[in-house]
């Protein structure tokens, strides 16, 4: 994956958030404050805009800059977590101008670690991680098995979506949704939907 492809990827994430703006608003309006559709479209758009001119050849720095911009633009829960994910991915890939399959895996693992370290959520806490983690696992396995990135993303996106759907078995323990306790169980987690959409953006290449 070269610079143009990585930038295009960020563009597609931004686009898929726009397409699912109302869906995210709707999900967040049930458990939270309805802002997720706005923050994710504004945030990923800003992230994309910050790097789309292609002036940054270092893909690590490119991701870091995209993340920092997103954090400044939308400092909500998910905005900040996504910023932390992008920045950690950037730190991890610093110096690369081209990404191998393994690098892509590293990108996603670092993204997950960045979110996990800041958010301190465990799997099963009904968060972004519960959508993202299954996708990253499938991605990693596929890349290790030597499958093509296209195939792998397809499967990873499915796994992430299933993870998202599966959040209806969990009780929220973080953020606004947590105040509902047991009543939060039957509801889909909006942050996990964002995870599934990010994966889908890569698959829809």
């Amino acid at each position, binding site marked *: 994956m070269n610079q143009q492809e990585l930038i295009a990827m960020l563009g597609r994430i931004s686009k898929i958030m726009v397409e699912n703006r109302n869906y995210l608003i709707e999900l967040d309006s049930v458990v939270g*404050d*309805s*802002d997720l559709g*706005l*923050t994710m479209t504004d945030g990923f758009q800003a992230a994309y805009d910050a790097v789309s001119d292609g002036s940054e050849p270092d893909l690590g720095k490119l991701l870091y800059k995209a993340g*920092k911009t997103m*954090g*400044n*633009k*939308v*400092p*909500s*829960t998910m*905005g*900040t*977590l996504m910023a*932390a994910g992008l920045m950690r991915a950037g730190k991890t890939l610093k110096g690369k101008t081209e990404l191998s399959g393994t690098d892509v895996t590293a990108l996603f693992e670092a993204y997950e670690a960045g979110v996990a370290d*800041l*958010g301190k959520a465990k799997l099963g806490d009904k968060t972004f991680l519960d959508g993202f983690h299954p996708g990253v696992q499938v991605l990693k396995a596929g890349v290790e098995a030597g499958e093509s990135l296209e195939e792998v993303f397809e499967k990873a996106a499915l796994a992430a979506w299933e993870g998202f759907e599966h959040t209806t078995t969990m009780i929220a*323990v*973080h*953020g*606004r949704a*947590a*105040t*509902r*306790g047991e009543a939060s169980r039957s509801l889909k987690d909006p942050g996990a939907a964002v995870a599934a959409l990010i994966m889908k953006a890569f698959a829809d290449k």
Partner: protein
Amino acid sequence: MKKLINVPENYVNEMLEGIYLAHPDYVTYTEGDLRCLVTSNKVEGKVGIATGGGSGHLPLFLGYVGKGMLDGCSVGDVFQSPSAEQMLHVTKSIDSGAGVLYIYGNYNGDIFNFDMAAEMADMEEDIHVESVVAGEDVASPKAAPGEKNTRRGVAGIFFVYKCAGAAAAAGKDLQEVKRIAEKAAANVRTMGVALTPCTVPRVGHPGFEIGEDEMEIGMGIHGESGIRRGKLETADEITSEMMEKILEDIPYCAGDEVAVLVNGLGATPLDEQYIVARKVNLILEEKGIKVHRYYVGEYVTSIEMAGLSISLLKMDEELKGYLDAPADTPFFKQGIV
């Protein structure tokens, strides 16, 4: 949406422009960013205290920047955290070598950004930052002992500001100011009631619906669900229900000495707040709990929500001393004339 505003996108910045021109003796901003508000009267050598959070809660947060209270505040969009970078700007501006204490409400967005800011302050600026998170809404679930606090922060943060601010003004060092802030935070409890919703300007419609004859006891200051929705009752009944939940929580006992904050959420007239204060007093008298001071008014609002909250701060002589100390900020003045 019935508001006296221009385009919703400019709501926060236009409000801030108004703040700076009305209170030039108290506050200014740093890094050319209106949302990075700092005191106009920096005291060298003093521990800096910073807060921050979403707009829509005036006079919280920025209104308490001034002598004897806070030194800086970063401001986000309505009900949205400011960014870590904005917090960092404020931190840099108010630090004078004695370190900076962050005091903020127990909300995800704020926590994540303040954590990032603290890390950046340490790594990039060599500023020692400590944090105290205020969360005292007894309507939100209590964490198991030893677990991290899961409660929402609401109006009780006022007491944390006041005590920590007085300690910093008295020249205490960062660890000591932090200890006082934690002590105040550990000894305050709040419960609220909402009668109407509020509308985030950029959203354009109310955050929730509630019947013309209904109230929600325990609702949070962004409209987070409370513990019970029901038919509107009398002020005395509602106050009794809220006080029962508050009193049993620490618990507050006969012989204790407290400060009381009756806080209007925005649309509820002062008259009603005093009617509730009167009932709070009757209940505390009956329980043998002594009230050292009353604060009544709008201290922490939810835009134009109707309703109010009651906060109790349990005090020993140390906290009392800090609570009684003078303060002079745009929105809170005590003992200054």
